[in-house]
């Protein structure tokens, strides 16, 4: 257990070193946030939708703030596969899956908090309909946070599956871009899931991608009542377990078939 906590701490520390990248990330995500909100404002000007504009802009800002949590990849890990430095990790007395899982979790958590908190403060100061609104209620906020934690578990599991894929293909980019297409579409990053047709939503909200950020955001904004929390958490937990088991299986298979090329 100590090894996993230790690598978690170490990765947090490492993330803190990249303050330049953090600033760049904030600016980039702020830009996307403002463009998206402007777009929805223009859309609402001509024809208002069922969902109030304040809720849409809140949704967009929360998505942008935690974007890093969803799509951040640990380039170091992929480089390990590419250069063969992974050999060293393979001869450590740790479970490889969980060793990398905790590392990924640390990066996603620290990376997104460092970017997300300043962004949300700025977004909160923007005028109504353009910025972030307060949570629907205190229980709403708390259950949103709980759901975000479970969402994080799913995100790390997804990332670790991509990692396992990269051990086969050596280059994660193909797989990663395919997965991130699914991700931005079905997680609500591209278009809030609440704006999809109702019949679509029934299916989309069941996918693992909807568990990542969509569910926590809807709890925050009160679109999902707090009483739904157990069902939501259960759905997230089921996905987390499935994705983790899939990842473990994949890793095990890789370890049996592995080749370390070149010397």
């Amino acid at each position, binding site marked *: 257990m*100590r*090894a996993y*906590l*230790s*690598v978690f701490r*170490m990765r947090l*520390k*490492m993330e803190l*070193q990249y303050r330049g990248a953090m600033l760049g990330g904030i600016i980039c995500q702020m830009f996307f946030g403002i463009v998206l909100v402007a777009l929805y404002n223009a859309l609402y000007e001509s024809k208002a939708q069922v969902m109030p504009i304040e809720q849409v802009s809140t949704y967009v800002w929360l998505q942008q703030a935690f974007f890093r949590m969803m799509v951040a990849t640990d380039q*170091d890990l992929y480089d390990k596969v590419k*250069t*063969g*430095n992974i*050999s*060293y990790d*393979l*001869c*450590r*007395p*740790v*479970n490889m899956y969980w060793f990398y899982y905790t590392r990924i979790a640390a990066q996603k958590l620290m990376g997104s908090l460092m970017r997300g908190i300043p962004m949300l403060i700025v977004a909160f100061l923007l005028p109504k309909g353009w910025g972030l609104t307060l949570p629907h209620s205190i229980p709403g906020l708390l259950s949103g946070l709980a759901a975000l934690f479970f969402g994080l578990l799913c995100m790390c599991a997804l990332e670790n599956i991509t990692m396992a894929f990269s051990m086969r293909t050596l280059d994660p980019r193909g797989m990663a871009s395919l997965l991130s297409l699914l991700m931005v579409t079905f997680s609500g990053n591209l278009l809030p899931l609440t704006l999809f047709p109702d019949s679509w939503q029934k299916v989309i909200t069941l996918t693992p991608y909807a568990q990542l950020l969509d569910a926590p955001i809807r709890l925050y904004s009160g679109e999902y009542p707090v009483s739904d929390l157990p069902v939501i958490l259960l759905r997230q937990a089921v996905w987390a377990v499935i994705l983790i088991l899939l990842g473990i299986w994949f890793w095990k298979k890789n370890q*049996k078939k*592995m*080749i*370390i090329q070149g*010397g």
Partner: protein
Amino acid sequence: MSYIEVENLRKTFTVRKKREAGKLFREKEIVEALKGISFTVDKGELVGYIGPNGAGKSTTVKILSGILTPESGRAEVGGRVPWKDRKEYVRHIGVVFGQRSQLWWDVPIIDSFSLLKDIYRIPEKDYLNRLQELTDALQLKSFMRKPLRLLSLGQKMRAELCGSLLHSPELLFLDEPTIGLDAVSKLALRDFLKWENKEHGTTIMLTTHDMEDISALCSRVMVLGHGQKLFDGKLPELLERFDTVRTVVVKYNTENPKLVLPAGVVKDKKDDEIHITYSPVDIPTADMLAILQNAGTISEMTLQSENIDHLIAAMYKEMDL
């Protein structure tokens, strides 16, 4: 029972060839990296493992360090099978891959060490003692708080060694540890390895292309080629087999020395030096020297055997590697 026992170890890789014109699918080719290797190593031995690139040296190390699983064969290290129960096994071994890095790129190396402490569950007291010992032996103090990216190659290798030995492994694998190091670092590294071997009785298995590493460190050498073991014994024995030519360079005080040389000996005059090339198998060196002394008064003489790298090259050639 020996500490390391390897019997008939085989490993094959499947390599996909480039698609040939006119064919729909790529053909697969099976490369036999190890074709049934057997050897034993006793505790506390310092063994050199040599062979040309692609001979299967690293593959052996990777199997014995629990990273790769062999196709067939048996291997036991201290009664444990490396690829079974990997987690328990690797606790007792240390590995240094000369071309790779285990330390974190942009955090101080001391932090990488403390992560290793947690990974190997080293008790705090043991860790501090061992760290102190290694810091002194490897002279790490001046750059302990620097991140890896700022270190020179020599410093990096010393830090890597420290990382691999923190948990006091019984067995240390070194895969080309002196690659790219300057003379001073190489000497320091060899001294350190000797010290570690003597002080803690650590069994060391070393692969290298640097014959100086072998002659300075290893009491025993194994030669590997095409996935097979070709030689196993002491380095002088190995050299003797290929060290077939000697050269003596003599200078005489006497004008026109009367040299009567047996058949098969080559004489070559360069200025006032005479180069004589002979084979110690045909004429014992003692006899050769007697002949030279009888010819006149010698002012200077040097006896040269062939450069060790040339010998190894000749050996690889003869063994068709």
